[in-house]
Each structure stands twice: as C-alpha cells, then as structure tokens.
C-alpha cells in the first residue's frame, strides 16, 4: 500500500530530498536517564504524515540511545514481520555511528507505560513498504550526529582539534598521539556537547555496512523455538478462548444452546456477544471441542443472500458510469477517434484473504484499574485506541505489549482482533487469550478488495498506443482506514500502478469509481493497489503488443526511451531470462514491468501448461532497481517471498461468497503454493545510488501479470479474470 501524498509523486524517487529534513523537524539530542546520550527522531509512519508535516510540534517516535555501558539501543516504530526491518534499519545507524551491527540492541516500541502517557504515538504503523524509505535519511543523520558529538567530547577531553580525531568501531581515536576512548566513556560528556548544525553523510563509496549482506538479527530465536509471537504470550493465569462469529457479515446471535459445550472437560465459560459466541477454557483443545458442541442460531441480517456474482455485477455496472479522474494526459477522445485500431477489454480480480501463518489472536486482561493487551501488531497506537474504546477506558489505562508477528501482509494493521478480545475479556475474570481457528481466520478476514476494470486503447498504424482509457471500480481501503487520505473520490493506494506509468503514453485517462461491497470489510494486503493495477495494466499492454503483432518486450521497450531505469531493468530481465530462446510446445514466457513503492522491477516468467490445463510456474527471473541497496540479502529474500505470495494469488487465490457466507475455510480450500510447486527464482539487482525504494511488496504485484502473459504465450488464451485455477485452459 502507499500513502505518499500526490505532491511527492513526481519524478523518479519518492523519498524526501535531504534538504526537506531540517534537523529541527526530526531530530533532538539530549541526555538519557542514566547519563547516556539520547537522540529522539521523528520517522514517517503509515498515516502519521499529517502530524509530522507541520514541523512545529516535534513528536519523536524513534530513539537512539548510547548508554554509559557502551550499548546502543534503538527503539523504533516499525515492527518486524519477516521483512528484515530489524536488521536493515540498525545498519543505517551503525554505518554512520561507526559501530558494529552487533553493538545495536533493539527494543520493541513502544517500550513502556511512560511513553504511553506521552502523546507521541500518533498513528503508528508498519506497512506500505515504507520503513526503509522513511528511515533512510533520518537514521543515518542520527548516527552521524551522535558520532560527531562523541568525537567532539573526546577532542574536548584531550584538548585537541576534533578534526584530528576519528571514530572507528565504537571508539574515538586520536591518531597523532595514539590515544583512544570508548563511546561508553564518552556518552555522558557527549550529551553536553552542542548539537552540530550540519552533518555530512558518508558517500556511497565509503559505505562499510550498507550494501553488504548482513545476517538477520532475529533469526536464531526463530530456528530454536524461543521466538515469542503474539499467540505465544501467556500471562499468568490466562485462559484460552476460541470463537464463532456470525457466518454472514452483519448477522447476530439469535440463540445459543451451550449445554453440551459446558459439559466438555476444561471448558470454563461461554461468552455470548451480539454477533459472536466464545468458549473459554483451560486449553485450546477444550475450547475447540466446546465450540463444536455449541448449537447457535443466527439472525443472518441483511446480507443473507449476498453472493460474489452480485458484487461483481455491481462493480461492472459502476464502470459504465464516470468516476473520479486519477490522471489525465492529452486528449484521449480525440486520439481514440483518429486511431487505426481500437482494443477493448475488461478485467476482474477477486477478494483475497491474508491467511497469515499465525492465525488471528489477541490476549486481553480487563481489570478494575485498566486493560492489558498482548499481541503482534503492525499498528500499535490503533490497537491501544481500539482497546480503550471497547473497554470504556481512557487511553493511558491501556497497556499494549507487542510481540513478533507471524506474517502481517496488512492483516495486523487492523484492530478487529483486539476489539473481539476485549469484548470477551470484559466478561472473563483474569486474562484470556482469544485464538481464532484457521476457519474463523479465513472466513472473518478483512479482504483484499474485488476490482473490475474496463480498458480501451487506440493504436496508430504502426501499432503503437496513442490513446489509453482505463476506468475501474472497487473498494477504497484508505477511505475506511485513514479517511483523510481519501480525497475527491481518490486515494493514493487504489491508483498506485494504474497512473504514472513507466510508459510514454501521450493521451492517457484513468478514472476510479469507489464502490463498497455490502457488508464485506476490505483491507490492505501485500501490495494492495498495485496487486490489482499492475496485473491489469501489464496484461493490457501485452494485449496491445499482441494486437500490434509485436514482441511484448520490444513493444514495452519502445515506450521507455524517456525512462532509462525502467528500460534497463526490462532489458536485464529479458537478457537473464533468455527471452529470445525458444521453449517447447505447451510452455511460454511472459514479461512484466512496474514502478511501484519507489522501485523498478521487471519479471520474465516461464510457465508450462498441461493438456488438462494445469499451470506450473517453472522459473522466474527478476531484475530490480530499488535504488541504494541496504541489505542485499534482504532484498533478495523479500523478492523471493513476494513472488511466492503473488504466484499463490495468481494460481489459486480467491475468496467467494454464497448466501452471505465465505466459501473457503482452511488451506484445502484456500490453497497456498507449496515447495513442490515453487518456481526457481533468480534475482538480479541493478547497482544504483538513488534513494532506496520499498521492497516488501513489489514481487507480489509484478509476478501476477507475468504469469498471465506467459500463459498467453503458451496457449494463446488471455486470462482476464484471476485466479488461473478454474480458467478454461484445457487443450484436449
């Protein structure tokens, strides 16, 4: 997802230019309790831009502390969900501070109740692939500032010119005299040094850590079973609960017969809510057994007859009306009138569940003095606010303990889980851990929206596009999640990947029509907007190439003369992917190209389609230009991960409804790519000194059209409705 505001869309990079970052706005320095040096920073967080922008009210959300024992402690607003943030961000500080990565310790933010009393938290969230983009300048600047102050403290102590001193490996050296002193001994003095007016950051050629693969700091605990996720939290005396929510969105509990459930050994209590019933027990085994024994009658409410087909039909209708203009270049109508050929197509993408490996869960304890929450969240402040509201408590009475997240993908930006847990905890004596079954997790997810797209293009006599018209309808996640982000019928996420295309398209018009599906909540998902837009745009451009009887890569490339970074990644993917080489019958190669989340990425994919229409994705070659690479290993891992996630969606992903009920329930009906189906993946990273782009979500959007285009190359069949499964690809 993307929450950059429109003003920052222009040009190649979306990260803030350095001169916007006057130190007053984002960095303060002082003494830490205990006498060390404390740097307080303001990092951009998802949805937090509004507060950060005015600059007058400095509200830090990240802290770098140089302790008197030499330990460097970082507290930051981004959470680790597997994307490697806990390793890459410390690298930025360590680089400028001249310490070893191992000297930096991370503390979960927010760390304690004291900070809760501080209004600093604002909207705090990790998402939008923005941790590296947001942290790139300020984190390095913080490291450099601390280093300069430590050097100045040493120089003062030795009574020498700071310019004759040098920082290295957690020490300040004075080469002329051979003296050296550890940061630990300087931390207290440094806090009293005036803050430097100007800090000069290292040149890329001097980077010692940035650009060199670094081991993940969180890995050891994750291979020996000691890592603690939200679902592993167990405050003393906690009971375990599981629940059944109304199978139809918007339904309510009419009656509950809980006699048999109460008789289950280990079941302690049945909690009835307006639209859900929970079984509280000594352990999950008893809670699940109790749940199965409940007889619940539901009042299904207004959506009892809803089906996916109704929603798709409504969206299709909506694309016949005008929408909000997301981008207009030139005069499409005029160009279309003069076109030699006209191509039209419609596309559809389904609802998708997140299906994070760690099922939804939240532990809550509501007691007379307040409320305590244990979970893994991408949006701590939102969790705290939701818990406070549900418990009827002031914010400062709610303590949230954050844990590792077993997969976020946008699901852990939502507060529905904490609301449920607090509703239940209000009726339970002592803490209660509410764990959703996988079936509840999939059937009561907040889904990636369904979208319907209508395209028309005009080609000139050479087959090149002279008019591009795209209108699409669907839900706006931002309108619900961050209402101020939805303006004039548009939001930056819904349109990312549909506008500001890499291609030179002289007459270009894109409209969005917001239509909310009745009763069905929609949410961010890995790559949200681009997961849809890149699929439709890159499929349609492939259709144009086919209509023009041109090679799909050459066709794209001809539209990229003004965009060297895009052209270069496409050429690299084509070369490494053996674009020109022949494939056996039944196999095909497809390409895609995108610029989203501030990174350029091209894929060349090989698929094999059997006579029965089964599709195997054999090989994916990816070329990426994500600006400066902080941790190359993380970039590669994230791309591999994003590709598997996108390939899962392309091949299998869909959530459908019938009679108001989600039809999928577990990994048998909501399939996920397995190791035996996983393609070989090659990642080629373009060397660049541009500011870093986001990497957590790009692979997901790029792979889907590449697969669809490869299927077209293999079979001549164009897939305009995702997923592939169920498509009519049989050739026999």
């Amino acid at each position, binding site marked *: 997802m993307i929450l950059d505001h429109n003003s920052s869309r222009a040009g190649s990079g979306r990260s803030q230019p350095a001169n916007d970052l006057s130190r007053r706005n984002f960095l303060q320095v002082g003494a830490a309790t205990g006498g060390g040096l404390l740097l307080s920073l303001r990092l951009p967080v998802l949805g937090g831009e509004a507060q950060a922008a005015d600059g007058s009210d400095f509200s830090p959300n990240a802290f770098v502390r140089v302790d008197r024992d030499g330990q460097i402690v970082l507290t930051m607003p981004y959470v680790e969900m597997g994307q490697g943030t806990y390793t890459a961000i410390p690298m930025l500080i360590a680089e400028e501070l001249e310490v070893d990565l191992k000297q930096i310790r991370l503390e979960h933010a927010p760390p304690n109740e004291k900070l809760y009393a501080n209004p600093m938290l604002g909207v705090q969230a990790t998402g939008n692939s923005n941790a590296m983009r947001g942290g790139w300048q300020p984190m390095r600047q913080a490291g450099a500032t601390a280093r300069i102050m430590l050097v100045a403290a040493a120089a003062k102590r030795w009574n020498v010119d700071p310019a004759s001193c040098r920082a290295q490996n957690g020490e300040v050296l004075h080469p002329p005299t051979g003296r050296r002193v550890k940061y630990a001994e300087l931390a207290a003095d440094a806090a009293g040094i005036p803050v430097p007016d100007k800090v000069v950051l290292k040149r890329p050629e001097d980077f010692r850590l940035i650009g060199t693969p670094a081991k993940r700091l969180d890995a050891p605990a994750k291979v020996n079973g000691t890592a603690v996720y939200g*679902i592993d939290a167990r405050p003393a005396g906690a009971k375990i609960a599981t629940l059944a929510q109304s199978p139809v969105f918007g339904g309510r509990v009419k009656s509950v017969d809980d006699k048999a459930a109460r008789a289950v050994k280990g079941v302690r209590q049945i909690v009835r809510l307006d639209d859900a019933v929970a079984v509280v027990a000594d352990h999950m085994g008893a809670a699940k057994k109790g749940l199965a024994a409940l007889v619940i009658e539901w009042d299904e409410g207004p959506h009892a007859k809803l089906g996916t087909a109704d929603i798709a039909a409504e969206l299709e209708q909506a694309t016949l009306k005008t929408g909000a203009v997301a981008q207009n270049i030139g005069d499409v109508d005029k160009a279309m009138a003069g076109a030699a050929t006209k191509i039209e197509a419609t596309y559809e993408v389904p609802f998708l569940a997140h299906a994070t490996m*760690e099922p939804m869960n939240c532990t809550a304890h509501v007691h007379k003095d307040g409320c305590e929450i244990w979970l893994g969240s991408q949006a701590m402040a939102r969790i705290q606010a939701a818990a406070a509201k549900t418990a009827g408590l002031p914010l400062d009475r709610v303590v949230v303990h954050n844990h590792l997240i077993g997969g976020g993908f946008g699901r852990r930006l939502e507060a529905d889980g904490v609301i449920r847990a607090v509703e239940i905890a209000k009726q339970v004596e002592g803490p209660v851990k509410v764990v959703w079954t996988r079936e509840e997790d999939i059937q009561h997810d907040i889904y990636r929206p369904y979208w319907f797209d209508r395209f028309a293009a005009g080609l000139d006599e050479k087959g090149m596009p002279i008019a591009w018209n795209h209108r699409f309808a669907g839900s706006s996640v931002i309108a619900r999640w961050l209402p101020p982000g939805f303006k004039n019928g548009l939001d930056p996420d819904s349109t990312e990947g549909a506008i500001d295309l890499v291609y030179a398209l002289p007459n270009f018009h894109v409209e969005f029509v917001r239509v909310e599906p009745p009763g069905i909540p929609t949410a961010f998902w890995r790559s949200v907007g681009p997961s849809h837009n890149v699929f439709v745009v890159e499929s349609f451009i492939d259709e144009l190439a086919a209509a023009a009887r041109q090679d799909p890569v050459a066709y794209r490339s001809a539209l990229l003369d003004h965009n060297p970074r895009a052209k270069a990644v496409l050429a690299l993917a084509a070369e490494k992917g053996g674009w020109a080489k022949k494939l056996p019958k039944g196999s095909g190669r497809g390409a895609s190209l995108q610029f989203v989340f501030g990174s350029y990425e091209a894929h060349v994919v090989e698929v094999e389609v059997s006579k029965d229409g089964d599709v195997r994705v054999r090989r994916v070659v990816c070329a990426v230009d994500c600006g400066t690479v902080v941790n190359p290993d993380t970039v590669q891992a994230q791309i591999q991960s994003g590709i598997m996630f996108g390939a899962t969606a392309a091949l299998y992903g869909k959530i459908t409804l019938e009679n108001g009920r989600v039809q999928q329930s577990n990994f048998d009906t909501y399939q996920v790519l397995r190791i035996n189906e996983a393609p070989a993946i090659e990642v080629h990273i373009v060397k660049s000194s541009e500011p870093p782009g986001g990497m957590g979500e790009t692979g997901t959007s790029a792979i889907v059209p590449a697969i669809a285009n490869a299927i077209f190359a293999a079979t001549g069949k164009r897939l305009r409705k995702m997923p592939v499964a169920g498509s009519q690809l049989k050739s026999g």
Partner: protein
Amino acid sequence: MATTINVNGVDRTVDVDGDTPLLWVLRDLLGMTGTKFGCGAALCGACTVHIDGVATRSCIIAIDSVGTSAVTTIEAIGATAAGARIQKAWLDREVVQCGYCQSGQIMSASALLAKNPHPTDADINDAMSGNICRCGTYVRIREAIKDAAQSNRQGALQ
C-alpha cells in the same frame, strides 16, 4: 484422566480428555510454545513434532495415542545430529522471514535428513510439501536442506 507422555526425554503428566490433540498439550498445558498452530487439520505442518523420530502433525494426534513413544519438539531438536545441522544451515542460508512456520519446517527437514542423509529434490518435495510457508521461503529451505546434507557428507568423510 491423567495421561503421561514423554516429551524431549522427560515424562509429563496432564489431565485432559484423551482425544485432546498433542499440540494443545504442548502449547497450552506444558507451555512449550515453539510448536505452532497453523490450521488444526494437518494441512500446514506448523505443528510438526517427531514421534519416535517420525515427523508428525501434532494437531491431529490425540494425546491418548502417544503412549510410550518419544515426542521430540523444536525446543530439543538441536540436540540431535540432524537437527543441529538443519538449524545451522537455516541460519547460514538466512531462511527465516516471519519465522512462524519455521519450527515445523525444521522438524520436517530434520526427520528427512535423519533417515535420508542425501535427499534428492524429489525427496525434499515429498518430505516438505506438507509444510506451508506463507512468506515463501521455499527456495532457501531447499538450499539449506542441501547444505545440511552436504555437511553430512563432509562429516562422514572426516
């Protein structure tokens, strides 16, 4: 009814219904949270443990069917030769992302390596396709298993 099972070499007694899945006994009653819940239906492999050395989905194994078998979990797998090699290869290859599936992946991979020191790609597919990784770490899982097998070979040559 009190039932005694042997987990990581230690006898543990719990008082639950005999049909209670082993997973919940481990996690909720014995506090061994390294073994994860993913689906509850033998579809994802997150809950994989070893029962007498065989990779088993603990979410569908009733506690009263364990008997005197030895249950080994992620907390103790590092004490076995295959487990230690797999864990090391996992770190060397930087396999983990969110990490949630990895206890189960490591248990499946260690069981494979213990009985088949030099697995082929097809062997790896057979042993590992019951373990879902939503973060898509499959490329590295395969590489890590091969590394661990390689270190096996080197160990044997010494």
